[in-house]
């Protein structure tokens, strides 16, 4: 239980992106991505997985975060996140 308590405390403290995260590329939806994705992990996961994922694969990654990892984001937010990832960090055409 000790660790669970720590987890909740730090969740409340977490600012969207920590100071040591390199900023993501500007673009529509970037604040939504930073506010949601960075609650659990550095946004370097996004920079690292680029630019090679197809729109379907980016969508599958966001779905995994919601379904498998329990990220509490709704459909509209998920759509905005996927659109940003595809536009800024997706496979080059």
């Amino acid at each position, binding site marked *: 239980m000790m660790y669970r308590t720590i987890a909740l405390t730090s969740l409340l403290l977490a600012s969207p992106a920590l100071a040591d995260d390199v900023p993501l590329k500007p673009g529509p939806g970037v604040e939504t991505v930073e506010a949601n994705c960075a609650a659990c992990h550095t946004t370097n996961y996004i920079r*690292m*997985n680029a630019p090679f994922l197809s729109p379907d694969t980016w969508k599958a990654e966001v779905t995994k975060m919601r379904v498998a990892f329990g990220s509490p984001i709704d459909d509209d937010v998920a759509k905005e996140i996927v659109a940003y990832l595809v536009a800024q960090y997706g496979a080059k055409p």
Partner: protein
Amino acid sequence: MHRRAVLAGLGAVAASAPVAQAAQKPGWMSPLLPEGTRDAATLVRLPGKQPLIELTNRPPNYETPIDAFSNVITPNDRFFIRYHLGEIPDMDALKNWSLTIGGDAAERPLKLTMADLKKDFAQTEITAVCQCSGNQRGLFEPHVPGVEWGYGAMGNAVWRGVRLKDVLAKAGVKPGALEIWMGGADGPVMPATPPFRKSLPVQLAQRDDVLLAFSMNGQPLPHLNGFPLRVIVPGWTGTYWIKHLTSLEISTKPLPNFWIQKAYRVPAGMFPVDLPFTSQNDNATWPITEMVVNSVVATPLDGAKVTRSGFTVRGVAWDRGHGIKTVEVSFDGGTSWKPAVLDKDLGKYAFRGFSLASGALPPGPCKVMARAVSNAGETQATTLLRNPAGYHRNLPQTLTVSVA
């Protein structure tokens, strides 16, 4: 505030650097890695560590620079770090550590302190490779999503501890036991995220060389390599080597957890195994278990300049526990091969060092390759065995040096 303490430690180098100053880059990264990975990776010195290649800092994923593998034993301060989830107790929190052993197939559930472990059980040592299942994922073509590791999500150490089977015997294993469920002190940021838990087949847990280790290369485990106790499963990929181990459950049922039932799966039958994990197999996929035969050249580095008098290739080879029979090196891009000189054998689960001198060379590019064969006759792949999660890449490494 434990997490904050860890983050402060992890971010020490990056946070103290002025924003305008470029982060330090690794000396060498494979050109096969995704562009974004090469752009995002930095060289960072964590507390107690030499500089490692930072792929992510939260959760922490750091790989060992390839030149480290010119040593057969990977020093603790160069050993890679891999976490799935962001809540990692700091050293103060881990001082209250204990290990509970229970489950529906345990005769006598019990709780052990570190003093109990060291006092009540025979101690033993093994030299074994700990390799992340996804090592070399970043070199997959086409790329697959995940932590985009190069060659360095692995290391070889001398692990000292007690036998898992002895600890289980103290709790008493009932007939009908199927799996040993394992859990550690690290956990998810959000309560809804599945904790990182894994299990082992009960037959494997009876092997003499499956350990609960408190020491690595003669020192206590480093914090981020699993202090104070981690599971050592020689021959199996690092996903089973649970860090900060706090619970063992002797169970009659397969562990129901995302990390074994949905993640860490390979296509059924694609890779050889001696001990199938049948309680977690399904028709289409199996859990990833035993490693594949592989080798890495640590020196020279790809792109190095060498003289016409030649150079010595040095690296390591390993497999899933049959041991290495031969390593061959090519200095002409795979047209001809010569047997390398093997270092002393440190055991069938350890890195086997190898080296070979090129002799005098004509000026121009020289394409160096290495390939290992195990005592089971298994060889490195000649074409990539594609699988969705990017596991078990073992194509022979190819590097080009420039002779002048």
